[in-house]
């Protein structure tokens, strides 16, 4: 059966990726990972997944190309405006009581979510006391996040989302447009630390008041989701907040009991007091 052969090829490629380059995709949900690997195989011009694996093992320069297929970097500024509006109205009043804050955007992709947070924190007068950690496993995505340059055509949606998210200023004050692209002001990155971090293999690195990890866990299988959620629990300050994607839930997780629902519809959870 061709399907069975491909299953073996995919397992071997993920093993090669892990052993040679320490990228661990073995705990990813297979349905969408399989689709992304097939797309990569077709578009990069390989006859088989095995042929792609051989190239990967022999040619380190091929790794970034494959990583761009394996990681999903689809987001928008203030994606799901209601999420940000709820954070602004109900979570930020709690955060305001802290003299200093740490926020972690886990799986920041190309940075849209990061800039949404920095903008919101600036508008709310919280940016200066906040350290923003933006992490991802894909160095190319981190470089895009660090550059903060996006297609100008996207800014119509960005502006609308910003407004619906309760934006208090004009988005156009924060970017400069030229040649069909727009770059966010570098001052927005003053308090941002960009870092390579894997939810599959890395550990706790600081104590956060708020972690936002949206549309990342959906690509993990239940065991890896459990690892990541355990990492979030251990990374949160007492009574810290966790924001997930609009369709992600703690309901099927072993860590569900460690959190309480803070804003159910917006998937914002809060760490219960430790006993």
């Amino acid at each position: 059966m061709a399907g069975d052969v491909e299953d073996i090829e995919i397992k071997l490629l993920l093993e090669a990726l892990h052993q040679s380059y320490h990228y661990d995709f073995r705990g990813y949900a297979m349905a969408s990972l399989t689709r992304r690997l097939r797309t990569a195989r077709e578009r990069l011009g390989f006859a088989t997944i095995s042929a792609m694996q051989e190239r990967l093992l022999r040619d380190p320069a091929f790794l970034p190309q494959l990583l761009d297929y394996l990681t999903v970097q689809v987001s928008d500024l203030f994606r799901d405006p209601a999420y940000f509006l709820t954070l602004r109205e109900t979570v930020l009043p709690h955060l305001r009581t802290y003299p200093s804050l740490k926020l972690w955007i886990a799986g920041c992709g190309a940075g849209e979510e990061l800039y949404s947070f920095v903008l919101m924190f600036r508008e709310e007068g919280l940016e200066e006391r906040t350290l923003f950690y933006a992490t991802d496993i894909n160095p190319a995505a981190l470089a895009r996040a660090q550059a903060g340059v996006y297609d100008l055509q996207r800014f119509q949606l960005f502006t609308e989302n910003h407004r619906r998210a309760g934006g208090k200023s004009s988005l156009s004050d924060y970017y400069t447009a030229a040649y069909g692209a727009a770059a966010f002001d570098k001052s927005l990155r003053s308090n941002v630390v960009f870092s390579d971090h894997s939810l599959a293999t890395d550990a706790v690195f600081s104590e956060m008041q708020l972690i936002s990890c949206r549309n990342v866990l959906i690509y993990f299988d239940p065991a890896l989701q459990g690892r990541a959620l355990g990492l979030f629990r251990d990374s949160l300050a007492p009574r810290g907040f966790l924001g997930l994607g609009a369709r992600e839930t703690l309901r099927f997780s072993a860590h569900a009991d460690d959190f309480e629902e803070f804003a159910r519809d917006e998937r914002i959870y809060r760490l219960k007091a430790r006993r």
Partner: protein
Amino acid sequence: MTRLRAVVVGASAGAIEALRSILPGLPADFPAPVLVVVHVPPDRRSLIAQVLQPHCALALREAEDKEPALPGTVYFAPPDYHLLVERDGRLSLSSEAPVLFSRPSIDVLFETAAEAFGAATAAVVLSGASSDGALGAARIARAGGAVFVQTPETAAATAMPRAALNACPGALALTPSHIAQVLLQAVLK
């Protein structure tokens, strides 16, 4: 046909009308999950499940990531997410790029269902104005599953049923109420 493990349904323009003629025909103890992709705008909430629920014995709702697909339940793909089936029968969501301009994509659901359930899959392609679902239905047919297509004459938009019929020569073209009947017969076998 092997004992049915899942029914997968794709619909676009004219979806509500067609689903209105199929889902109420399935009893609460229908022994397979029904997974549905309807092309909807990417807003936060879709009202399809709520609109159809009062007419249905099955439980209708939007799918949550990694939940097991259970019999007696109709799972709708949430707006702005692809709905996929894992090999162990759990449902996955994904916000990867749209396929044929659609997220959710019918082809993505159908292809992953073909791999998870093989010949135990029944695909239903309903009214719609694109060609989404045709490739996925062909995959299900190749895996030995059954493909039922709404007769173009009864569809508000004919492109999607026609594309599916072209892609799957073995597909049965039926009116929506007949589709409910053949699904019932399929599970009673």
